[in-house]
């Protein structure tokens, strides 16, 4: 039986390994996440945190030799991690779409915009008539705020913002349930970015989309996400509603991350800084991965790994220093 709050996507204990010459990179280390239908999950982290690898793994697009070494990716109750490749191909694009960072490398420079759409439609609906496909394309371009006469142009003839809108359009033309956006606005200017955020919010309502936004940009998730998962060194260290993450963060890494971003609405005199860098993931250290950089570190942190547990209703964090729903500043 399904209820309203049933998770559309449920990641359980997912680990992804990349074997390299000197060992194995444990890029994603046992993460669990849920996204409810119609919600937006923001996955935030710095380079190397494993956030993009996690996003690719949902669609099983992790490049060899990288592989899912453990865990399940449940989409509508079906485990994508163990689905036969033939079935997986039907899920990609049709049920779950992906919007990548750089629209110029994701679009084929030799294909007109309409040909990109025809290709997607033909692949998943081989029986579709040209006229019907054309109607769908006109409709989706209208939703994106692009004049339909522009469907005959090539990617280089469009601006960056326009190309990114085409990318999201290609993702939506088959009416997927879930859209994964990996750094969707990194290549865009501020005004174009703001336009993209507004567009995504509108499309989410119109198409009743569930969205996963993967980004390093805290401003973007503050604008879009209902819930936010903060990743560090291949793990989720905190998972809560957007307002809890920004206003009452529990994990010292999240606190540091929020405090080191300049906010145009504030008069900041100094920014909090975090020295050091994340650990290598070939031999991740015992204990908490953030311990070497943590201002609150204590003995136990270096020996034993903290688990992601619920400290306040709906607010999970992985830190030994959190007691009674607060970060404890004393030993």
């Amino acid at each position, binding site marked *: 039986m399904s209820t309203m709050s049933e998770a559309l996507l449920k990641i359980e204990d997912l680990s992804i390994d990349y074997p390299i010459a000197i060992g194995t990179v444990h890029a994603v280390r046992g993460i669990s996440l849920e996204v409810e239908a119609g919600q937006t999950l923001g996955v935030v982290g*710095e*380079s190397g945190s494993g956030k993009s690898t996690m996003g690719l793994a949902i669609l099983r697009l992790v490049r060899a030799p990288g592989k899912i070494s453990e865990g399940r990716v449940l989409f509508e109750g079906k485990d994508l991690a163990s689905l036969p490749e033939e079935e997986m191909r039907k899920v990609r694009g049709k049920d779950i779409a992906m919007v990548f960072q750089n629209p110029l490398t994701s679009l084929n420079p030799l294909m007109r915009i309409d040909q990109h759409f025809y290709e997607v439609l033909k692949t998943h609906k081989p029986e579709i008539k040209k006229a019907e496909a054309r109607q769908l394309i006109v409709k989706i371009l209208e939703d994106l705020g692009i004049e339909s006469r522009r469907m005959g142009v090539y990617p280089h003839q469009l*601006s960056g*913002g*326009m190309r990114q809108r085409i990318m999201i359009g290609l993702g939506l033309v088959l009416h997927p349930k879930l859209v994964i956006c990996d750094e969707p606005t990194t290549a865009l*200017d*501020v*005004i*174009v*970015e*703001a*336009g993209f*955020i*507004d567009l995504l919010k509108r499309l989410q309502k119109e198409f009743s989309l569930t969205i996963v936004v993967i980004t*390093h*940009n*805290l*401003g*973007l998730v*503050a*604008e879009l*996400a209902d819930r936010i998962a903060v990743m560090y060194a291949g793990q989720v260290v905190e998972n809560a509603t*957007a*307002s809890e993450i*920004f*206003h009452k963060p529990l994990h010292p890494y999240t606190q*540091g*991350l*929020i405090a*080191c*971003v*300049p*906010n*145009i*609405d504030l008069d*900041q005199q*100094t*920014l*909090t*800084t*975090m*020295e050091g*860098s994340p650990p290598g993931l070939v031999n991740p250290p015992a204990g908490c991965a953030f311990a070497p950089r943590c201002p609150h570190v204590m003995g136990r942190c270096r020996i034993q790994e903290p688990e992601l547990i619920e400290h306040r209703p709906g607010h999970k964090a992985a830190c030994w220093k959190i007691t009674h729903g607060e970060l404890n500043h004393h030993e």
Partner: protein
Amino acid sequence: MNDAPLLEVKDLVKEFAVRKNPFDKALAGTDLKVHAVDGVSFSLKKGEVLGLAGESGSGKSTVGRLTLRLMDPTAGRVDFEGTDLTTLSEEALRRLRPRMQMVFQDPLSSLSPRMSIGAAIRHGLDVHHVGDRHERNDVVRSLMDDVGLTPADFLFQKYPHQISGGQAQRVVIARALALNPDFVVADEPIAMADVSVRALIMELLKKLKDKRDLTYLFITHDLATAKYLCDRVAVMYLGRIVEIGPKDEVFRHPHHPYTKALLNAVPVPDPGRRRTHELPRGEIPSAVFPPSGCHFHPRCPFAMPACQEARPPLKNVGSGHQSACILE
């Protein structure tokens, strides 16, 4: 801070020729040019940080390069302590170079992969024959301490591929400071860095400015960063400064419709302050065929017929605060 400006830029213009097919050229009836910088003037006092903010294609990076004469302007002048750099001989310019330096966006492409980072920082000292080799190495070590590249002895012999991106940006900053410059142009020095590294680099730039009495021209597309780091801000659109003033003035009481639109679009890291954005219609027009009159008029919600006719001059709208809009 004394009152004479350290740097004064007057009516700077830079056009780039476009190689297009002859048909386009015949249609346009003239050689096509990109009007990258279109009459930009500003001055910088010693010890001041001026932010040059704008979107891609606004001409902000070109202005940065022109102020150091890394390229020659089409017209206009750049006075550094009263000396016009644009007419200076190569030799005279070389003698001035130690006093003005640049930090680029991508640290790894600004460093030679075959030069150890110690040698990279020392390079300017070698070229300008400062002291003997031993003294130069001492200067490098103390610079490395200053920018947080510690332990200096250990990192001295490392190569760029052996260090992190944040460390590489520190190397580039140390190299820019090696000859003790007065003026540094920083062109998006944190754009490629991770969030936590950005904060470290910003704090470092602030600390070094105070310690070494530096003057910065800080080029950025990120207004929140400009607000944090700068004393004054100039907002550029399609090759022109549309608004300039003390940062508190510009950010609290923006006058130009473009500045307002830009500020409205900045994502605020606070989910409690979500809003729908009021955005200007359309997109930035081509700098090959910029709109007549005010460049912003085709997108401006307040545009009037007069806006298409003449370029609006920068008018005073507050203390040291100017805006180029006919409505002022």
